[in-house]
């Protein structure tokens, strides 16, 4: 590549006299920090490292690392000290898939912005240019951001609202807005005051109702245009591209408060409900986990409005059901349902909740498998792939290969199957004689119902593939039938090793009386 890549590793402050753009954004972030303790894209912070990682991955075209960074909530629309955004880097270096992935995950490329123009100008290939042009649209709600889309959806469908604002619009009509107290309280101190009363659910708004309504709609990402007013200042709304970050950041702060209100107790459910429903965070449900040894429960106050992000809960509350069919379960009819996360520890539950409220989370490697199972059982797909990424990227395996492989099968994550196969092929000497390996091969074979002699065994195929990678054997050199490199020609020692490994696998299969 003839392009000079800027060394992202040098993190020393830039000596430029004019304040560079990234600093302005940093300053913006710091101002936000007055409200939030979590830092966004600041040098030395975990997020900044995440962003550096994202830029590096975008430059080298490593889709997997890009996915990981984005999945962990790195803001894709930041820029580095040279004003490069990940999208510009990927487009400049010609990585079509990475560009596509970034665009699909909210990276912006609007022609009327400096970044967007630069991105188009620097596109290495025509196909990338076309791709960028296709995405050159500013959307009201960024559909590529499911979290924001969810907010807009619950607001416009008036789901799980607990407060009504009434007022008279400029055109003289009586209008009302339904919203969620906790969400508004999280967004600004002013609104916290407005909704402060726990009992009052109807709040009259006297002046500037139209402005007020617009601000609320903006908060929920239903509106996108800047429309400043006295109220927007009071509400602490800024009209810019980083607004979505601000909303999430504020939610993250609120979530910390919510987490502090958890209760671990043996008390009967009624008492718990009494206690929880009285909290100043306005919860309308609780999630709990049960300690299998002591039988104590840990309750977390939560909000249905965000729970319904997950398909499991939206089914439970019937929010996705089509009209005319009444699917009211006990949980949906209860005014304050207590919902169990089965066979889950508080640590895992908290990771789930963090993701639910802030759209990002950190998963410690030793909890990754638990998170994976929980996410799978609740259909929290994004969380599931986050967990899978943690497992496949861990430097030392998070569990035994057998456990990981079985988890991969149970939760249907191919990426993890490949991960295990690669692992085994790298240490084939050790694995080939292990009883565990033979069991896994047999299990893999058994996954195909009514298996025929000639059917393949996925695990074995994957291992063969990674052996080829390991020994650097070109696919063209492999015999179509046997997979081996033809020994009649002069072959390298690596290729010979490769053939030997295949022989050993065949021996093993013979032992198991499996043909594949």
């Amino acid at each position: 590549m003839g392009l000079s890549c800027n060394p992202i590793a040098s993190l020393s402050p830039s000596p430029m006299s004019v304040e560079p753009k990234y600093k302005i954004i940093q300053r913006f972030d710091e101002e936000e920090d007055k409200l939030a303790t979590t830092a966004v894209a600041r040098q030395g912070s975990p997020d900044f490292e995440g962003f550096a990682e994202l830029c590096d991955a975008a430059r080298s075209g490593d889709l997997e690392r890009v996915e990981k960074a984005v999945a962990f909530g790195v803001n894709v629309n930041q820029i580095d000290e040279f004003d490069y955004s990940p999208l510009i880097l990927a487009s400049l270096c010609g990585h079509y898939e990475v560009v596509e992935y970034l665009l699909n995950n909210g990276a912006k490329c609007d022609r009327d912005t400096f970044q967007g123009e630069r991105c188009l100008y620097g596109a290495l290939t025509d196909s990338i240019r076309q791709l960028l042009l296709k995405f050159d649209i500013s959307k009201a709600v960024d559909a590529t951001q499911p979290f924001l889309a969810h907010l807009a959806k619950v607001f416009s469908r008036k789901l799980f609202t607990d407060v009504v604002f009434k007022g008279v619009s400029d055109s003289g009509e009586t209008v009302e807005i339904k919203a969620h107290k906790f969400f508004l309280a999280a967004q600004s101190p002013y609104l916290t005051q407005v909704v402060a009363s726990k009992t009052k659910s109807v709040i009259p708004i006297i002046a500037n109702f139209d402005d007020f309504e617009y601000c609320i709609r903006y908060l929920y990402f239903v509106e996108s245009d800047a429309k400043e007013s006295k109220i927007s200042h009071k509400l602490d709304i800024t009209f810019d591209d980083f607004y979505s970050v601000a909303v999430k950041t504020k939610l993250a702060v609120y979530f910390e408060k919510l987490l502090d209100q958890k209760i671990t107790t043996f008390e009967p459910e009624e008492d718990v409900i009494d206690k929880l429903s009285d909290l100043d965070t306005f919860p309308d449900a609780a999630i709990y986990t049960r300690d299998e040894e002591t039988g104590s429960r840990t309750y977390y106050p939560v909000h249905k409005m965000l729970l319904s992000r997950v398909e499991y809960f939206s089914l439970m509350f019937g929010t996705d059901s089509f009209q005319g069919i009444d699917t009211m379960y006990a949980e949906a009819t209860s005014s304050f349902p207590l919902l169990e996360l089965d066979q889950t520890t508080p640590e895992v539950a908290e990771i789930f909740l963090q993701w639910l409220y802030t759209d990002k989370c950190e998963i410690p490697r030793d909890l990754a498998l638990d998170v994976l199972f929980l996410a799978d059982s609740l259909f929290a797909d994004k969380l599931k792939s986050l967990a899978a990424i943690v497992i496949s990227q861990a430097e030392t395996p998070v569990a035994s290969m057998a456990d990981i492989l079985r988890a991969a099968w149970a939760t249907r994550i191919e990426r993890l199957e490949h991960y295990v196969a690669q692992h085994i092929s790298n240490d084939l000497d050790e694995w080939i004689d292990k009883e565990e390996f033979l069991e896994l091969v047999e299990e893999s074979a058994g996954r195909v119902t009514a298996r025929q002699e000639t059917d393949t065994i996925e695990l074995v195929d994957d291992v063969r593939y990674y052996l080829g990678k390991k020994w650097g054997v070109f696919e063209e050199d492999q015999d179509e039938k046997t997979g081996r490199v033809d020994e009649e020609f002069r072959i390298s020692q690596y290729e010979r090793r490769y053939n030997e490994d295949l022989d050993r696998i065949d021996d093993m299969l013979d032992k198991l009386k499996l043909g594949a």
Partner: protein
Amino acid sequence: MKMTTQRGKIKAPRAKTSSSVSFDKSWEILASAMTKIQDHESSPLSFELLYRTSYQLVISKMSAQLYDAVKCHISAHLDKVQAGFDPYVVVARDDLSLAPKFLEGLNKQWSDHQTCTKMIGDVMMYLDRVYCLDNTSSPPKLADLGLHLFRDHVVGTGPFAEYLYKVLINEIQREREGEMVDRIVIKNVLSMLDLLPQSKSNKESVLVHCFSDQLVAATTNFYSQAARDLLDGNKDPVVYVTKVSGWLEDEEKRSKYYALESQAYSPLVSDLTVKLVSTKLPEVMALPGSEIRKWYQAKKFDELKTLYRLISKGFPQRSLLHHLLKEQIVSEGQNLNSASNSAVEAARKEKKPSAQQTALAHKWVTDVLTMRDEFAEITAKCFDNDVEVVKSIDEAFVEFVNKHARVAEYLSLYIDNLMKKALKGKSDEEVAAILDSTVACFNFITDKDRFENYYKAHLGKRLLNSKSLSDDAERQLISRFKMAAGGAFTSKFEGMFKDIATSADEMEFFRKSRASITADSEPSSAKKVELTVALLSGTYWPTSIAQGANYTLIHCADAENAKEQFEQYYSKAHSGRKLEWVPNLGNADIRIKFKKKFHDVNVPNPVMPILMLFQDVGDQSISFHRIQMETGIPIPDLKRHLQSVSVAPKTRLLKKVPMSKDVNETDEFFFNENFEAPMTKIRVLAINATRAETDVERDATMVQIDKSRQNEIDAAIVRVMKSRKTLNHNNLVGEVTKQLASRFKPPIPTIKHCIESLLEREYLRRDDNDTTLFHYEA
């Protein structure tokens, strides 16, 4: 994140649960829940519990078992549901009066089933996602399973299905006959059939696969019978058209309501259209009472619109309408033609053909134009101004108009009449409308050269005698002709106008020059004759005008003097031009003193010298022969002129001996001193006013036209060959026909004849090898 001590070791979280799950226990929970759902007792159910129970079964690899159990459970329930319909299907199978209740019940069961399936699908979501994959080899998703089971266990293919289809057809038929039925229930049941797939592999719905054909057949049968009844009764095409269109509209609306256009109903409507319109309508429109013009005259505009809609539906490109219009217009036109011809015959028998001819021509053209206007209104009001239909109508007009032998002459006569009389007192808009329709009629004529001939003659006479009411109207008409047939066609007409204009200018100059000459040289005693000359270029004007002008009229001395002066002036002003006088055109104003008083008499040009002979003769008579000698007028012309001044009662300026109606060569003439008239100004009419041709004249015109046509064909052939150099016979004939199409339709034998003559004259050469090939010889 801090670790508690007991979680220090990593455990495989869910794998261990698999052994502890008992299928029977779990299934018991789920089965009882499903029963509750089916019995509408879902509210106390815990989603959490049910979901978790099914989740654990799946995770413990018991998906297949669970799936089968669900399937059995639903099937058993649906079997019971079907049994519940036995009172209708089995017991009262032929009593369709219970049908509404049956459909209502079925609809209820169906919507319950949908709800249940949805709820079961919700709590078994994990099974659905993991076990039912999106490929053909995996079992269907639970929602689809619900449909399959309902199809197999309720609708089926046996007596239940038979009864259901019968009931549906019967209910729809009742609705058709105007009875009250529960349309919503019918609609729901139909959409149920539409949702049920025929089989797992065949995604076509049960509705399309099993029911649609029956419905279509039943409906078509009903309407076919109704149509037959209609035609057996009164055979009024108007009634048929209105009814059938109503039926079709009803069925379309019905199919829209049931939202089945794409599925079961569209074959229905199109089938009906074929049966009732495409095959029946031609037959119906052949019955008496189907004349479109009569419908129009009876102001049946809505019916005509309906007819148009029906034909549009049932015939590609509305072929039937084109056919009908052509046939009807041509036959009506033929009627007009034969009426006109028989009137001509009648007039001929009464021996006064020419005077009435004009009236006949006027009537015929008016009739044609009326008919044309009527059809134009019909197309505009009822046929959507369909361009193709307009074209068809025009073609029909062309066909019959040209069958009339005298079309060109009649149209020209009609226009002559318009210009002289009929346009009087009409507003500009009215005039424009009349001219438009006239041009439309002109467009129908194929032999435009023939028309040109007549028109030239008539126009010439109007111009020379200043008979036109409005020059503007004349010019407007010519510009319309120009648009319709091109500049070449109207160039001569325009030339005629130009001649008249230049004549006026010339006369202005002539008068000035003559005034100066008179002042200089002439003695003032000489009587001065005013002279106004119309200068006509020979090429523009019809040769017929100069016919019979091959004699020299001898004027009195004063007039001859004026004539000479003009000749002198003209040869001086335009050297190299030859003047030829046309004696029998033009007028003269003479003042005559009678016993009672003076009269200003306007006479045709040749009459002037005749009267001048009587200027100083007193009571003496002048013989016919002497008049002939002194004026130089040929005998037949002279007879005519004398008749106008000595026989016509109002203008008897001369007395004739003996008194008789006819003028004979032996007659003697006297000046009629006692002539009396109420007005001071008198006009002596020439006895050759515009009128239709006699047969002899017409034959002469035809011969003349044929001759000019030959010239035109010759010219066309040479033009074509000059540009192509080499061409075979067929192509040459084609090209020539195309070139002349705007003038006339050249008969092929004539073209051949012309080619032959051109070969002889060596304009063309036949190819040595290929006899059909011609070369142009420069």
